[in-house]
């Protein structure tokens, strides 16, 4: 399998130059993800999992180190380039789903494509519908996000993450807010998409049972990956 992304000597320090006490969260972390991997990111609270996901998702710049994805050095890219890169190549699933409450399930799903195109195209709507059918929400397409259950919202969030056919999906505790049955459904869905589309998933979780469903487990401890 080819390398999708690689980070080397990644350091992230909070409070640097801001007159606050400096906190070094990532201390020279190295990590490589191959295309099509389904990996779990494990580690205690405060170990730097969320910081790592934010950097890998181009939502945050590291203090130092290298971050290369799809052959592009993202460490020195500007906000505009990072935003466009994120839109095209990275999907996100958050613990609290974070759907846009005033929009329907379908509108939420096609948001990344509509932002890219500047309008809601017929092709985007067709793919949005297809994704919602795939996550089992064909009967909820036109429901406002606020009218969906927790599990349904998370499935909409997964569909949204897949909208632009990203190479990498970063999931931060995607089952953390779900009951066991919903969590199992969501993980089965992720495994199926990973298997069928070779989309790379990196799933941050505290749940060992969830981690066991992933083929690779990466532990972050003391700011480094093991």
């Amino acid at each position, binding site marked *: 399998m080819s390398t999708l992304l690689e980070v080397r000597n990644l350091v992230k320090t909070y409070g640097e130059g801001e007159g606050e006490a400096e906190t070094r969260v990532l201390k020279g972390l190295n990590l490589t993800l191959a295309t099509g991997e389904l990996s779990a990111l494990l580690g205690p609270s405060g170990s730097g999992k969320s910081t790592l996901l934010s950097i890998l998702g181009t939502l945050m710049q590291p203090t130092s180190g290298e971050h290369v994805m799809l052959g592009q050095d993202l460490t020195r890219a500007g906000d*505009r380039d990072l935003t*466009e890169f*994120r839109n095209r190549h990275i999907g996100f699933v*958050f613990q609290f789903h974070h759907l846009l409450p005033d929009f329907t399930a379908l509108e939420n799903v096609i948001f990344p494509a509509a*932002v890219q195109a500047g309008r809601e195209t017929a092709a985007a709507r067709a793919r949005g519908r297809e994704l919602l059918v795939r996550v089992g929400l064909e009967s909820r397409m036109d429901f406002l996000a606020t009218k969906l259950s927790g599990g349904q919202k998370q499935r909409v969030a997964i569909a949204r993450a897949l909208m632009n056919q990203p190479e990498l999906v970063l999931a931060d505790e995607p089952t953390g807010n779900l009951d066991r049955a919903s969590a199992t459904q969501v993980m089965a869905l992720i495994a199926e998409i990973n298997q069928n589309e070779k989309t790379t998933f990196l799933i941050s979780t505290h749940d060992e049972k969830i981690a066991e469903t992933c083929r690779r487990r990466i532990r972050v401890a003391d700011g480094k990956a093991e």
Partner: protein
Amino acid sequence: MLYGFKIALRYLTASKTQTGLLIAGVGVGVFVFVFMSALIGGLAVFLVQRTVGNIAHVTIEEPARDPISLLPQSAGALVVEQRATSQRTQLRTADAFLPLIDAMPGVAATSPQIVGNGFLVRGLITAPVGVTGVETAKVSAIADIGKALVDGSTDLGNASIIIGSTLAGDLGIGVGQVVRLQSDRGVERSLVVSGIFELGVDALDARAAFVSLSSARTLFDLPQGISRIEVKLDDLNQAEAYAARIAAETGLEATPWTAGNAQLLDGLRAQASSGNLIKAFALVTIIIGVASALLLSTYRRRPEIGIMRAMGAGRGFVIFVFVTQGALIGILGGLIGAGIGYAALSPFPVPELAPPGGLPVDVRQGAYGLAISLTAIGAILASILPARAAARVDPVSVIGQ
């Protein structure tokens, strides 16, 4: 950016009550703007109409001749001749200029006149009077004598006179009665009072009298020429421009009504300034209202903005969404406020027809387009600060909230 427009519209319609109140607030501000424009404009029309409506907008006279220098200026001494008073200034070439002035677009009427002073005598009562000789068909060309008539008619024959109501009262005469007019040239004629007018201007009602042009020629011993030409314009605000044009084209002295009414103009300017200040406050209120509401919305939607940014929405997209909200609020509020303003002002008569004591608002001067445009621009400017704040939202810090 069509998609940004959709998001902006969705945000506005998602909070209908809040948006409705915000648009209503903007609408009230625009209504105040429109009402003040109509009131200040209407007051100006009303005042000018009442004070200037019955006088000439431009008066054309023969220019006063400069005293003649008897020595060349280089002689080191100036000797001048005192202005002659033995000869009256008169327009000898009026017939040549009248068709030219009459043909000017914007000239409503012209009235060649012979003016002079005299005394009206009835029995033992004598009253000073300013006499204006006018063409019989143009009695109401400048001052609307016909409309101001309280008795009789405006028909002027060679032996009739129209006088003001105060003067008639002082002399104790009415329509059909005879009065003697002694001119300052020593000519005396008996004239029948054919009409009595009341313009509401005491100087005119107590001292003005109108006779026919031919009577005036006899009374003031002026077989040829006239004293002046009075011009009435469609738009009295153009008087200065027309006076300059007439002077340039005829070589005569043309004086606009503004030259003799500086205090009125100062008052109107002060009134307009006060109105502009109130309108500016209304605009500032709109801007503050829109800015604070959108700032609140920005704060409330921080997690959503963070998600949009995480999903690949650029800062420009976020700014567009919030600026569009401001623009929509401004345009809608502007349209509603201007519409209500127009509807509220429409029942009022125009200032020219306003009854005494009535509110002289002028529906034509509501400045509706300006109000809507300024409100839209103001709302857009007001939304820039919240929009920039929204664009600066750090997705990482708000996604966890």
